[in-house]
């Protein structure tokens, strides 16, 4: 059996066993066991993948298998992964793993909570292993139900409003996707039977008129999930209302789904339109990058700060993709992974701090470093990674992106690259300010002195996320070299026109 199926089967089995076990304690343990298994499977997949690559398997996607599903429509359950997908799967399983431990204390309807959370994760895993666009879309949509319930039931603040806004905006995005996907599907008839298969579609050169019409549907459809300005407004509300694990998973992984889709589907399959329209979206993403960073400065709520910072960082992902050089796309993928890890870490820490102080408003708190040093230090590390300190993953990603973007010689791209680099400075402002107000200084309130430092499950969650951030920061060569085999063909297709 194909190892990739494991990534759908384990979560489904976990959900089924959660339904059967008795009390909330065994629910937690089952969920943790299932997701630990998933993490191990992801590690095994990564090792197998790179062993096969070493052994000289040069196909674009490895571990392919194909089951016919709806024969007359030529819809298949087709799976396969390239190195980007492998890293995304590793990232997802790590974030879910950390998310389970970060929500160890959920008592209210905990069974339903973990079922929804793992169903959400199933959708993400399925998305990354799919080669057939129908299956991919199916898994993408699978996330809708659990997302709404998770934010609506276990969220905080204006949770009903946020849940509805997030769900509807993302559904609107998938509405655009449906049109784009059907366009690809029916125009593939020019080269044999109609198909949703990504690999077969990538061999077709679509007429330019068709590309012009459908590219915006696909790019904006996925872009909404990647917080493309001005359609990013679901992100601050949604992420700040969501419970900890959902914020982690959503900002950490689901927003990457948008970037991955933009690259894999919209740009890869419709390269000419991508080149033609890149400037429009480059302007929008530059706005995302800078506006998101400025937005974060004005916020007082820790979650809002991080949500706006996510808009800025995910904007940078789309920005780098649209620059379409090998280096910049490489940087974009590293940024996806790096941001996924650190934003998950941020949200986990915010959840843990909130669990103690019952407040997320920065000016109300202070001196936390004295009472909860472990969480404090972890927060500082996440912050430094976010502002791009050398030695942590954020630096590697942003450096690669900006170097790659500056490779272009035309004035427009150079100017917006310079504008986008401004975000680094602004990021430093809001990160350092929060660190200063929240962690340093005298302890503001007396009851803070009784706070316990991180529990074992919290430490586990935090360490699981910090380790890879540091590893990528210290030894990025392995990650960026491993990506070349996936990015090579994409860039070749994107730039074959010149």
């Amino acid at each position, binding site marked *: 059996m194909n190892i990739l199926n494991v990534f759908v089967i384990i979560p489904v089995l976990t959900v089924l066993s959660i339904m059967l076990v008795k009390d909330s304690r065994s629910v937690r343990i089952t969920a943790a066991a299932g997701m630990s298994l998933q993490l191990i499977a992801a590690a095994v997949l990564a090792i197998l993948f790179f062993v096969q690559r070493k052994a000289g398997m040069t196909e674009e996607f490895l571990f392919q298998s194909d089951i016919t599903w709806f024969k007359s429509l030529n819809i298949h359950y087709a799976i396969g992964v390239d190195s980007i997908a492998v890293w995304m799967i590793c990232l997802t399983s790590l974030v879910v793993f950390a998310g389970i431990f970060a929500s160890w204390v959920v008592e209210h309807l905990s069974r339903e909570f973990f079922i929804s959370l793992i169903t959400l994760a199933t959708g993400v895993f399925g998305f990354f292993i799919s080669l057939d666009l129908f299956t991919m879309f199916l898994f993408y949509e699978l996330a809708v139900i659990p997302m709404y319930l998770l934010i*609506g039931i276990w969220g905080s603040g204006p949770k009903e409003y946020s849940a509805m806004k997030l769900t509807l905006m993302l559904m609107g995005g*998938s509405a655009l996707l449906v049109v784009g996907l*059907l366009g690809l599907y029916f125009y593939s008839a020019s080269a044999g039977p109609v198909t949703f298969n990504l690999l077969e579609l990538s061999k077709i050169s679509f007429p330019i008129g068709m590309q012009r019409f459908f590219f915006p549907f696909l790019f904006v459809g996925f872009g909404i999930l990647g917080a493309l300005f001005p359609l990013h407004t679901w992100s601050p509300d949604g992420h700040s209302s969501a419970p900890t694990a959902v914020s982690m998973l959503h900002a950490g992984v689901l927003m990457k789904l948008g970037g991955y889709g933009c690259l894999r589907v919209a740009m890869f399959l419709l390269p000419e339109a991508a080149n033609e329209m890149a400037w429009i979206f480059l302007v929008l993403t530059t706005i995302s990058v800078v506006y998101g960073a400025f937005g974060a400065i004005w916020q007082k709520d820790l979650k809002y700060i991080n949500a706006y910072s996510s808009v800025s960082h995910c904007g940078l992902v789309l920005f780098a993709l649209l620059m379409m050089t090998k280096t910049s796309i490489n940087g974009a993928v590293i940024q996806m992974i790096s941001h996924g890890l650190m934003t998950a870490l941020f949200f986990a820490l915010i959840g843990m701090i909130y669990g103690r102080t019952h407040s997320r408003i920065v000016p109300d708190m202070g001196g936390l470093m004295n009472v909860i040093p472990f969480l404090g230090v972890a927060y500082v590390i996440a912050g430094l990674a976010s502002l791009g300190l050398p030695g942590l993953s954020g630096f590697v990603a942003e450096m690669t992106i900006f170097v790659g973007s500056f490779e272009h010689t035309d004035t427009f791209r150079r100017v917006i690259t310079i504008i986008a680099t401004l975000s680094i400075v602004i990021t430093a402002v809001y990160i350092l300010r929060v660190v200063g107000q929240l962690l340093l200084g005298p302890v503001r309130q007396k009851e803070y002195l009784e706070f316990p430092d991180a529990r074992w499950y919290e430490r586990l969650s935090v360490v699981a996320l910090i380790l890879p951030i540091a590893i990528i920061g210290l030894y990025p060569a392995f990650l960026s070299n491993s990506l070349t085999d996936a990015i090579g063909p994409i860039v070749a297709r994107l730039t074959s026109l010149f």
Partner: protein
Amino acid sequence: MESQSFYLMRNELALVGMALILLVMEIFTRPDKKNGIIPLAGILFALITVIGFLPLPEGRLFGGSFITNSMTVFMKNILNTGVLIVLFQSYSWLKREENQGKIAEYFILVISTLVGMNFMISSGDFLMMYIGLELATIPMAALAAFQKFSAKSAEAGIKLILTSALSSGILLYGISFLYGTTGSIYFEDLAGRTGSDPLQTFGLVFFVSGMAFKISLVPFHLWTADVYEGAPVNITSYLSVVSKGAAAFTLMIILFRVFSTVTGVWQPLLYTLAVATMTVGNLFAIRQDNLKRFLAFSSIAQAGFILLGIMQAGEMGMASVVYFMLIYLFTNLAAFGVVAAVSEASGKERISDYTGLYRTNPRLTLTMMLALFSLAGIPPVAGFFGKFFLFTSAGAKGYYILVLIAVLNATISLYYYLRVVKAMMIDKSETPIAAFRTPWPMRISLLICLAGIFLIGFAGFIYEYITGISFGIN
């Protein structure tokens, strides 16, 4: 004509036989033993449903007025399954004091309408189709007014009969134009002769309008919400699934058979109707608080989606419509089943009454939630597949803008379906509907529906089978 060719009418004959048996039973049963009719009718109907799945040869009767082929048999099986579920759901309602004297009546009326629908689907000329339509409509009005002492129910019956009369008139008027210009009412003769004659276009428009009343397409939908609200819940679910399905099937078959040469006329017509129906249905559904009215408008919107498949005018379109109806049947009956169960136990039918239902009745709530997500077209439930294939059909004709409008409408519909989910799962209530035990027939029907909702989407072979027996304009 050989006597064995009557076997082609197996389903209709069996249903008529069942109605007669029940009539005789009604006469010879003592008033205090009337309850015994319910299980008998249930068993008989279940038998008929099962027999329906046995193979049947293709053929035609009465000089081509009655046609049996694999597609009509399959459509009838869909309707039979729907009615069987409805009968399960009406079990405890029928046992009520107020319905004691009318048990056999209920079954006979339901079966008469079903026979009418079967004749509509199998019809090979307009006369047969019209007789079937009337047979399907007039007993329906009696069913809608089943609760004699409820003013709303009586109102529903009257509204249904008046609008039906009007729509039948319009339909007949349209048919008379076709007859006048071609001299025939047989679909086969008409197929070659319909052209761009303005009188025929006139006839086509009137015919589509008449059918649009039955499927409740906008702007012919005004009766729907009132009738759905006034009629007993089981009748409403019957109306919204079985009756609507039969009318949609008939419209599709006749458009494909008779008007195959004038697709240029009816495709834009359906395009407009589809956009209006989806949008108006959705926008009105947002404002409803009564769940029956809510589901009425939701079913209007769903009818708009069906038109996307009909418009494709090919095998793919027919397959997607039939597949969608099959899924819609299980989905909508699950939703109505929950409404019926709650209404039966507590008498409450408003969305605001459902707040906090998850705490007291988690299983019913989950059933309702899955049904609503299936209606909205969200995976893993089957509604996703049904809708996606309808969109695919429309895309095959190049109607990408229509697909966009449809998908945006699906997003709007998600909003109001989520309102109900929010009330049940998220909102907290001081006085939720108390926990109750659902009667066993209802539970069985809901289990069947849930199995359908979960399995049909993933079972690719069902779609392949439907595609295999579909036909279109070539």
